[in-house]
Every structure is written in C-alpha cells, then in structure tokens.
C-alpha cells in the first residue's frame, strides 16, 4: 500500500483537474564532496576489499561511481596486526590475505586520502553464522499498470529455511544475487544514413560477422566466433533482507522470502542461478542495512514516513568532510539453486533482437561464464 498516497494525490488531480506535480529543487551541498567507503571482511579465503568513491548528484542519470584513487588504506585487527591494501582497479583496494577474518576477532580500517584527510571505521566483530538449509521458489502471476495498460509481471518468489549457529547471533542478513545468461545479436546491427534511406548492415566487429556484399542492404558472412553475443547478468537484491525474531523458532528461520525473480524472455533465456548468502552482523551493521531496507521499501508515497539519514560506522578524524560508509565483519554461508526455463508454466518467445554488445546492453553483466553454470 505504499504507493496509495501518491495515487490519492493524483486521483485528486483527476478530481479537480487543477493540481500539479512538479520537480522541486533544494540548494544542497555538492555531492562530490561526500566520501563513500564500502568494505567488509569475511571468514572466507577471499581478499578483503574496500571501495572508495564520491557521492552522486541527486539529479544524475548515471549510477557510475566516481572512484577515489591513490588512497592509503590499512586493515587492523584487535591483536594489533595491520595490513595495507593495494589499489587493484581505480577506487578498489584489496589486501593480500595476510589478515584473514576469524570468528571472535574485531577489525577496522583507516583510510587516508591523498589530501591527508583521514577516516576510521569503528571496530566490528566477526560472528559465527548458521547455514541455509533449503532454498525454494514459488511461481506468482502478477500484473502491473504501465501507461494505462495492464501488463504481466510474473515472478518466482524465492524462500529459504535457515538456522543459526547456536551462538546467540541476533542480527542476520541474507544477501541475494541472481545470475542469468543473456544473448544479443550484434551481427544484426544496421545503420541508416540520411543519403541512403535503406538500412545498411553494419555488424559489430566482435560479432564475428562481416559485410561481404554491397548489394542493397548488404550480405553477412561469419568469419570468427562471436565474443560479445553472450553474457551473464547479475540481479542484485532490491533491498537487504534482515532477520526479525518473530520468524525464529528454536534457532530456525523458516519461509523467509529473500527475493523475487522476474519472469521474462531475457531472464529465462536459459536458466537462472539463485545465490543466497547468510551472514551474521554486528548491531551497527544491522542498523545500517535496516535503514537501507526502509528507504528502498518505502518508495514514493504522499504519506510516506521520512527516510532517515544513513551514516554507517566510518568517521572523519582530522577533517569535516561528509563521509558515509560501512566496513563490517561477517562470516558467510552460501547456498545456490538453478531455476530452469521449464519451471515457467508457459512458453517464452523472443519478439525483438538486441543488436548491441551483450555487456553493453545489460547493466551489471560480465562475459566470463560463472563456474557454477554447467
């Protein structure tokens, strides 16, 4: 019912046909002055990663981060050990696994920017986590209103059953990630020039095709393998899924809905990989994700509650810069399943071809086949 308030307002637009909705701009401090720090350490054998970027302008159309480079980042544990991070790609820093996450230990980071501004995270303790016992899915038929039309928006709801480690953890988060295989047809690309009204075939070079004849419209010939026709696309969770004790019965979490997988031609072109991670958080980290969840779930509504200021556990030490971020420690247990195309109770037929490079067309996509895929 979160959108009802807005609908009510727009309803009155219809009622008295005099109301109006318009953008309103406030004078706010420049977003680029804000430093954003994201990082975590787990008990996995993965290097610890920290990403540093700048805030995005509220009016931006792009969600591409502005990375902060050449920062000095150091990881500390509560035994006094320290390990420096190396910048692997712009704005992304990794350790060399000298310090590994251990249950019961606390960790924090220090970040020094090239201008000398120093930021420190509060120590976060790595706690044991339980495990996910089962992942299930259920088909749900849905429709949505789009441009005054009712269109299908069916989903698979993903549920898990899980249990705690029995070590009294209270703050549990489940992180969902979906992956599906997508295909595009860059060989079918055409261009239209003003001087020649018939579309000309113009396959992308990575498609493996070339135009061999200049008859009207042209003729294609395959000369190599396509290297940009297939990619794998990630779906990330819309909002973090967090534990609430009303679900708990003797250390068990049952029927927790962690995600909705949209059913369409693209997502079920092949099959769909569901990854769910269970992690045990500190109270600080839990509150951070809890505010993120509230913000994501209370979308546009006239009667919406005010969203809160999300700060996290990183503080500026020798400067007054705005910093937002969280560096947290969590042990992680993981479980995956595949949803097959045959699970969809009706045939899905492609109607249009995408003629761009696959990774260009699909956001959050990559071209290396995931290990789990075969």
């Amino acid at each position, binding site marked *: 019912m979160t959108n009802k308030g807005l609908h009510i307002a727009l309803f009155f*637009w219809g009622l008295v046909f005099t109301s109006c*909705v318009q953008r*309103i701009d406030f004078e706010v401090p420049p977003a680029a002055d*804000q430093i954003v720090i994201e990082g975590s350490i787990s008990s996995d054998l993965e290097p610890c990663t920290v990403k540093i970027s700048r805030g*995005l302008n509220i009016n*931006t159309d792009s969600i591409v981060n502005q990375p902060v480079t050449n920062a000095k980042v150091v990881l500390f544990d509560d035994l006094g050990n320290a390990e420096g991070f190396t910048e692997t790609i712009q704005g992304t820093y990794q350790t060399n696994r000298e310090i590994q996450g251990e249950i019961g230990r606390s960790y924090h980071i220090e970040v020094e920017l090239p201008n000398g501004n120093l930021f420190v995270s509060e120590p976060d303790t790595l706690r044991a986590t339980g495990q996910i016992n089962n992942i299930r899915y259920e088909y749900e038929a849905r429709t949505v209103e789009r441009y005054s039309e009712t269109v299908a928006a069916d989903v698979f709801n993903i549920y898990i059953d899980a249990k705690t480690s029995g070590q009294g953890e209270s703050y549990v988060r489940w992180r969902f990630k979906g992956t599906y295989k997508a295909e595009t047809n860059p060989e079918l690309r055409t261009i239209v020039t003003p001087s020649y009204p018939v579309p000309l075939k113009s396959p992308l070079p990575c498609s493996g095709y070339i135009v061999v004849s200049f008859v009207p419209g042209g003729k294609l010939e395959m000369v190599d393998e396509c290297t940009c026709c297939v990619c794998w696309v990630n779906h990330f969770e819309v909002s973090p899924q967090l534990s609430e004790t009303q679900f708990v019965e003797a250390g068990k979490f049952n029927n927790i809905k962690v995600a909705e997988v949209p059913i369409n031609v693209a997502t079920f072109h092949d099959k769909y990989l569901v990854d769910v991670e269970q992690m045990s958080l500190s109270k600080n980290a839990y509150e951070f994700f809890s505010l993120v969840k509230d913000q994501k779930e209370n979308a546009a509504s006239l009667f919406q509650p005010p969203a809160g*200021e999300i700060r996290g556990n990183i503080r500026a030490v020798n400067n007054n810069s705005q910093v937002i971020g969280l560096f947290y420690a969590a042990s992680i247990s993981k479980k995956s399943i595949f949803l097959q195309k045959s699970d969809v109770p009706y045939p899905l037929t492609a109607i249009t071809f995408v003629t761009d490079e696959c990774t260009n067309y699909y956001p959050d996509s990559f071209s290396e086949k995931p290990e789990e895929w075969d």
Partner: protein
Amino acid sequence: MIRLIIFISIVLYPLFGGAQSIVDFKLNATSDGQTLTSILTDIELAGSARCFYLPEWTDDFVLDKSCVGMTLSEALEHLFQGTELNYVSPYPNVIVLVRDPKNAIRRKEILVSAQKQGKQVSAYRLGEKRVGIANTELSVSGKIIDESTGESIPFVNIQVDDSHNTTTSDEDGHFELTVTSGSHILSFSFLDYENLLADLEVYDQGEIEVKMVKNSRELEEVVVHGTILKEVTTSRIGQTELIMKELKNAPAFLGEVDLVKHVQTLPGVTTVGEAASGFNVRGGSVDQNLILHDGVPIFNSSHVFGFLTAFNPEAVREVTFYKGGTPAEYGGRASSVLDVSSKDGDYENWNGKAGLGMITASLMVNGPIQKGKTSFSSSFRSTYSNWLIHAVETNYADLSESAVSFYDGTAKLSHLFTDKSKLSITAYASHDSFRLFGDSTYKWNNRQITAMFYHQFSSSMGAEFVLGSSGYSYSVLNRDLLTASELSYGINATTLKAGFNHEGRFGKKDFGVQILRYQFEPGQLKPRSSSSNTKSVNLTNQFAYETALYMTDFRSLNDRLYLETGLRIPLFISMGPASIYKYRSGEKEVNNISDTLTVRRGRTVKSYIGLAPRLSLRYMLDKFTSVKFGYNRMYQYLHLVTNTTAVSPLDVWSPSGYYFEPQRSDQVSMGIFGDSKSKDYSASLELFYKLIKNVPDFKDGAQLILNEHLETELLQGKGTSYGLETSFSKNKGDFTGTLNYTFSRAFRTVKGPTEAESINQGKRYRANYDQPHNINFSWKYDFSRRYALTGNFTYQTGRPVTIPLSAFRYENTTIAYYSGRNQYRIPDYHRLDLALVMEGNHKVDTRVKGRWVFSIYNVYGRKNPYSIFFQVSDASIPQPYQLSIIGTVFPSVSYNLEF
C-alpha cells in the same frame, strides 16, 4: 453637560447670626437609626436653620452608629459617597441638597435612543424601594437564554451603566453582578444576537432571566462589536468563539464552508498543507487537539483526507476554541480544545435551511414537537462528487472505477422538563468511502450518541450530566485476486461526566468528575478470498480508563482584577489483556526480546496520575484595555501513532501504557488586549512559551500499522515552542477586517541511549509544524446591505522537510543520502481568496431567504506545495517532487436557502 437642579435657592440673612454653621451641627446618639429626613427636620425644628431637599431623596438614607459624633457635613459626605446626591451651604444657616441629574438624563437618553432604534429593552425590578436601602451594594444574578430556543447563551458580555463594571456569562449562561441599589442600565451583547438593554431597578438581591433574540438581519457590526468586547473582558487568555456567520461569508474552497479551515486562520494555528486534515496549535501535533462534539471526543474530523471537515456548519450552534488558559474542565490533550456544540431545534416554529455547493448538498430541518417543550433538529449533508469524478476525463487513469463519497448527519432531540431542567440527545455519524482505480476501498466512520441533562437545583447551584459514546473506525478493502484482504482498525470511547457549578457570595465554582473508557481495536488483517495469500493478523484489543476530577474557582477580586484558578487531577489506567515484551539490556528491538509478560483481562498494565493546575488572570487597565495571563498543564494519554506529516486515514490512536508514557505540556501565555474608545478598532498581543514532555516521535522509516511491537519504533522526547501572536481588527463601518501576524518556533529533542534511538544525534531539531511567520488577513467590504465582498490572504513559512541530499552506491545498490530530520523547508505558502456574498431579502417577515456566495480560491494561481514526495529516478535515486493540490485559480459558487 452637567446640570444642577437646585430646588430652592433663597438668600436669607444669617439667622444663626454669629453662631455655628449648620454644617457643623454635631450629631448625637439619638441620631442612630434615624433617617436623614428626620434628622434634617429635627435640625430645622431646633432653630432657624433651613434645609432644602426632597424627602424622596433622603428617606432611603439611615444614619448608623458610625455617624454619631460626626458633624452634619461629615455625615452627609459619608452617606452621599458614590451617589448622585451632594449638598451646598450658601449661608451658615442654610443647607441645600442637590442631585446631579447626569445619570438620570443619560439613562433616559439611552432608553429613548434604544426605543427609537427598535432595540430590545426589558424592564426588571428587584425588591421594593424602602427606607435605608440607599447606597447599598446588592448582588444581582441571572441567566441569559435564547428567546426562541430557551437555550442558555454563554459568554454574553454584560456592561453596567456604560462603566467598566463588566462581566461575562459563564458556560451555562449564568452571570452575577454587584451594583448599588437604584436604577441601572445593563447592556447585553453577544455574537449573532440583538443587543439588549435591561432597565433595572434594584432594591434587593435577586435573580433575573434575560431573553435575547437572534439577529433577524445581517448586522455584522453587532457581531463584531460583541467579539471585541469579549476579547477585552473575558477572563481567559487564548479563548476564541468562532462566529458561524463570518464563516459563511468567508471565501471557501469549492464553496464549502469549513469549521477547521477557519480555525486555521487564527493566530497561533497552522496547518501542514492545503487540504490537510486537522490543525497545529502553537507547535503541537494534530492529535494534541481535543475535538469535542456535544461533550464527547471525535477522533477524525475530516472528510476525503482533509478536504472538508466532518461537521456540517448548519448543524453547529457554537464553537469555542481554547489554545491557552484552558479551563480545568477540559483535559486529555496537550495543546488545545475545540468544543463544538450542536444546534437545538426551534421550540416555537418549524424552519429549515438547504445548501447547494460545488460538491455537496445539505439540508437542515428543525422545529417543535411540543411547542415550548420539545424540539427536534436534524441535518444531513452528502456529496455528489462521484458524479463529478466520472464526468472528468483524464489521461492519467480510468476514473470510472474510482469513487469518493461521504456523508454526515446530526439529529438532536431536546426537551425542557421545567425552566430549570433540560435533556438533549444528540446522534451524529459521518462516513467516507474512497475507491481508487478499482483495487482498494478506504472507508472510515465516526459515530456518536450523547445524552446531556442540565438541571438548576437552585439559583446558586446547577449541574450538567453527560453520558455518551463515540467511535472511529476505518477499513481498507483490497480486491486484488491474489492479495484480497481487509485491514481494519477501531477506537471507541464511552464518556460519563458530571459537572456542577455553584455561585456563592465570593464567586463561582465549577467542579466535577469525568470518566472515559476506551476500547482499541489496534488492527486486524484478514484475507478476503480463498485464493488470497494474505497472512491473517489480529492484534489484541486494548482497554484503558481515563478519569479526572476537576475544580475551578472564578472570582473578581475587585472591579479590575478577575482570577480563575483550577486544578484537574487525571488518572489513566491501561488495562489488560496485554502482552508486554521485555527487552534485553533495555534496548527496545524486536531482536532483543528476552521475555513476554502476560497481563490478564481486567488487570492493570500501568497507571499514571497527574496534577494539572490551571490559572487565568485578567486585569482591566481601564475600560478599554486588559492584561491577561494564563498557565496550564495538560496531560495526554492518547497518541496518534503516525510518522507522516499529513494525517492519513490509516493512522492509529494508541494509549499510554507500559512503554508509552503520557505527554505533559506546560504553557505560559500573557497578553494585552485593547479597544479604541469608540470600539472601532481593537488590537491584541500575546506571548506564549510551551514545553511538552514525552512528545512522541518515531524512528526513521518506522512501520506503524499492524505492529505489535510499537515500542520498538517509538521514541519520546521534549518539545519546545514559543511565539508572539498579534492581531489588529477594524470592527465597524463598511470595511471591517482582521490582520493577524504570528511569529513562532517549534522544536523537538529526542535523545536516546543509542544513535538509533535518537533523532539528529540527539540535537534539537525543527518540529514538522515549525512555521515561523504566519500572516492572515481577512476582510469584508459591504457595499450595500445585501452585497459584500470578502477576502482572505494567508502566508506561512514553508514547513520543514527531510530531503535526499545526494546518492551513493553500496553493494551494487544506489542509496539516497538524506539530510538530518527536518533540516530543509518547502517553499513558503501564500494564497489570496475572494468572495462575493449576495444576501436575499432582509425583511424580518420574509419566509424564504436565499444567499449566494461566489468564491475565487487562489486568485493569483500560486502552486503552493501540499506535500513533497519522492519518485525514484532511472538511476534509482529518489528525487523530490512537490504536489500542489490546487495549482490554479479555482472559482466556485454555493447557494443557501433558509425557510
């Protein structure tokens, strides 16, 4: 002009010839108990002295012991003090008593002029003139009633002999005056009533009944005159009577006259947005206003999400609004009281009113069932907005599946058993139904039934008994196949009140007891079809009792100083059944529950008792100026659990209990009120400071509906507000108007043990209603007896909001970074409205009277923001949009018929 009447002025050669003067004549013990006439006769008989006087002047004066030993001149000065009599002694052996005729002439002039103007003049005589009564202070009490309905009229201004000896009738229409024996003219004035003059001859204590007549013509000057007199002389600071007639003249959105919209124009009152329900008083939230309808609380006063108020103005007799100096009789809310009384039917004739506006039609019929004894009044208002909606074509959506409808109705039966006993029974109901594009239907209802019994036990003791029940409920019906469900909520309050008033020698006392029983149905969600996947949720019903003892003492310490002191002792008990969740280390989080306490039905969960003193003081600097001071403490045990700025019909009322502590407000206000000598102009200035303890606020993004762990989302803190309210009025002439300016601030501080339990890191922040500058200017220009142009201009500083400042990416999600709570403001609000009022025939004997009101709302078409909301952009960043409900000029017309 002072004219002396000297009956005889004869110049005689001194007969005493060198002896002592007559005025030095010593009074001996035999003069004790004698009338002045016999003393003067004795003096004449004793020698050659001559006394010139009329015995009818001197018969009333009796000498007492205190006069023994005095000279005649001393005795006369003592006796004549404060009277119209005086003496001269042109020669030692002559004394001439003279009478200043100024008052007699003035009195005659007033009576003659009143008769010429056709004003009501009633003659009263208390006691018989008798020897020795002269210059005696006598108490005159009385009751003021409406001549046609027999209803008592409260707050009537009473002025004695054009002096600053004034008083006001109390809530039950009673008054008490102290006057010297003799003749006086009492002037009675009240809104909507013809001024009445009482030609009073008083020679004994006694009681009079004053019958006032409703204005038969639309003489606004009389109305405004009454208001201003009252403003200066009423004892309470922060009390306002709403003038129903002015309400009907004011420009109104969609031509619909609205009670709450009028309250919003008063100094110190603000609103969170156009067409928002409720109002905010001196930095308080909407739920801090107690709205009473015939003595019982009403929980939602709005139709269609606040577009209109759920009271039909035609059914309302009187509205009193208290924002400071609240009498001890009222309690249970922290900021203000809006006391609405419904109309009695006419006891003599059947009559009615019908109104036709842009979206509503109303009908009111009233008259006698038994002439002079039993009357009935009924009003009903409904909308034809469904028709309007379906007629509108919009590209946004198909509105044919949408619907909006509402109605409200009041029925009142009143019976006069004797002239001292009256019973009235009121039934009231309002209903709203709202369906949106066919998926969800919102419905909400108010209902009330009240019986009120008044009885005057004696001339000094009266009582009022109220037994009533009121309730509010809503439901949201979702018809979607897979999620079909019904969400419902309800609150019921049963009120029992016994209030007494006693008038004694030293003033008046009000005292009584009030008992309220609440039943809350905090929420139920039920699936509505077999294929619905909605989970059934049913929160346990809650029960609570709120009782209060109160007493107020009203007294005039002297001609200038009036004092009202009161005490209210409220006791609130939250009752079982209830499940109390205990939290580890005191931190209230669902993850932190360590234990559950079960309280059985009928057992106490938690009780709170308080002492709420009240004080009102008025000091008349002169006849035209008064200074007032008020202090009140109020407790609030019911809280509107909401974290939206505008009231939504889905808000729930929650009682104080194990975790939710009562709010306590302490307010001090003082002001100066003045009229010009001609009463053409009046002005006031008021200052207030208010502190509220345990004011509720909620965690960021709290979910409040169907939440059985509400305490985990609740924060309580401190509220502070202060301000200056000024008002200037022109009350007479073709052009009348009022300009109000208020400067006020309202802040909150919520500092909990952790950052999550604090707001803005525990620092002071602006309350949602912090709108520092507030200007309201309303006026009326009569260009003839039948045509008037009225207008209203309003300006308010934009209210505070929380907005996204920037965005950032974290774990592949775009997250908005919001400012601290309420750190920004929406643009300022201002609007001009105009209306042309066309009255029908003014003749008193006209059977049918019509009235047209043509209004233009938002004359210069300002797009005032009603609300700020956020729409997620393509880059997943919430961006602020403003919604202007009335974004353009909006003309409307309404027609009212009185028959």
